[in-house]
């Protein structure tokens, strides 16, 4: 069976800085992968390579056995952040409608089939109730479920979600993760879920990918999120602390969170 994602010897440099170097990974169809790492480790860079908007400097990525560009319709993508709607009264539904067949030519008529598809995805993410309201007045949690609905248009086989939990409270994080997990199990969908904190995703992830120091480690949580593995990846002493089913990555110098570790790295 063709893997959902095949990353071979992938290197990416941006403006002369090596962001990712010689990454290899194979992700099977239907897997739920959590992608973590400190700020600047290249999570979004990797995402951009997967969705085909950034060409690798070396190596290759294959999505469902195809170059990313050709697999674009099989990828549902949820970008990081969403702003700029503050002055418009455009409804959440109007945004999703614009994205439905948004790459077609002609005027933006919404066909009956498209309307039904929009209804469907809004139902899946439980956003139908407020989709008629202007996007600009929705809460952060509501907006994220609209953006997730948008990523589900056309039932893609791979979902690429770039930090969808950012600035959500624990309750809304839970709701969003539940939605994604439901989609993943009801239709066989591969999920690549970029996040900063791995704890909310503990129960849904099949495997984790941890990016640091230009490299990547992919495997079961217990194999990757260990002091040895992350120390090797960071090239600095890292300690993994576990308490009551929760995991924290700290630098061995003590008390430093993972993003601050990365800061040390760049110094």
């Amino acid at each position, binding site marked *: 069976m063709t893997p959902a994602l095949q990353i071979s010897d992938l290197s990416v440099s941006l403006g002369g800085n090596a962001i990712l170097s010689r990454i290899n990974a194979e992700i099977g169809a239907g897997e739920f992968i959590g992608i973590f790492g400190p700020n600047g480790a290249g999570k979004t860079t990797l995402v951009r390579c997967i969705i*085909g908007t950034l060409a690798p400097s070396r190596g290759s990525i294959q999505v469902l056995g195809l170059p990313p560009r050709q697999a674009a319709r099989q990828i549902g993508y949820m*970008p990081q952040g969403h702003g700029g709607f503050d002055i*418009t009264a455009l409804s959440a539904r109007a945004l999703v409608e614009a994205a439905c067949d*948004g790459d*077609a030519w002609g005027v933006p008529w919404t066909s009956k089939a498209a309307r039904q598809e929009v209804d469907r995805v809004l139902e899946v993410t439980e956003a139908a109730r407020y989709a008629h309201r202007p996007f600009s007045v929705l809460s952060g949690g509501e907006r994220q479920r609209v953006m997730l609905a948008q990523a589900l248009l056309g039932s893609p086989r791979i979902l690429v979600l770039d930090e969808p939990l950012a600035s959500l409270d624990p309750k809304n994080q839970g709701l969003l993760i539940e939605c994604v997990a439901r989609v993943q199990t009801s239709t066989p969908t591969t999920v690549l879920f970029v996040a900063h904190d791995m704890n909310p995703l503990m129960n849904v992830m099949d495997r984790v990918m941890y990016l640091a120091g230009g490299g990547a480690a992919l495997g079961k949580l217990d194999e990757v999120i260990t002091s040895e593995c992350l120390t090797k990846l960071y090239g600095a002493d890292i300690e993994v602390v576990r308490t009551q089913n929760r995991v924290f990555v700290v630098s061995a110098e003590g008390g430093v969170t993972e993003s601050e570790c990365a800061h040390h790295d760049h110094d």
Partner: protein
Amino acid sequence: MISTLANYLGYEFVQNALIAGTLSAILGAIVGYFVIIRNSGFAAHALAHIGFAGAAGAALVGLSPLAGMLILTAGSGVLMGQAGDKVNRSDMAIGMVLSMALGLGTLFLKLYSGYAGQAKSILFGEIFGVSSGQIVMMAGLSVVSLGGLAIFSRRLLFASIQPRLAEARGISLSEMSTGFMLVLAISVTLASQIVGILLVFTLVIAPAGIAVRLFRTFWKGIGASVGLGVIVVWIGILLDCVTGYPATFWITALFFVIYILAEGWCRFVMRQGHS
């Protein structure tokens, strides 16, 4: 008053003003909707001023101001589109180009003596000076730019509100930007024939800006924008006939009042809790 109005409607220059006003209001309202959702109001403003240099320079080489303006705005529009999203939304880059264009316009005016009267009409518009020949040209340009927009408006809408998603779907943001800036250049040129370069904003920004604040779907927004633009331009022209105060004043004043009312309405609705 009714009979005075009926009397005025019989004049060809009033009829021409109404036709030209309608054309530029429709084009401005539709293109303006995209200007608002793309957040590129300053680029629209700059294009109009670049047109000033074109119009002033045209006289030097024996072209009509309309042609000169069109050539320069279209050229700069394409360049701005090519330069990409970052430049398009960079106040700094646009500001530099804008002031250079105004400087050039001043130079051209100086070189072409006896041009002061025409400069005033370029800057403030001459709504009752539109000839039948100009109307044909305006109609042609409107059809071309709206036709062009119709071809790629779906992609443009998607790229405007969700640029990163659109990019992931294989839409080239710089192509969209270039195509749109070209359409914008044409509509800015047309609008300036009616209200003048300084007030292009009125036709391109005001109706669409108000419609975007009030309507939740694309088509209702476009419809409201067009309706509002055309009605206000008509009222402005007719008020000019009756009162003798310039149509440009009436049009801007009406839009301003409607904008204040719309803002007030939005805030009122917000406070009521949104439903």
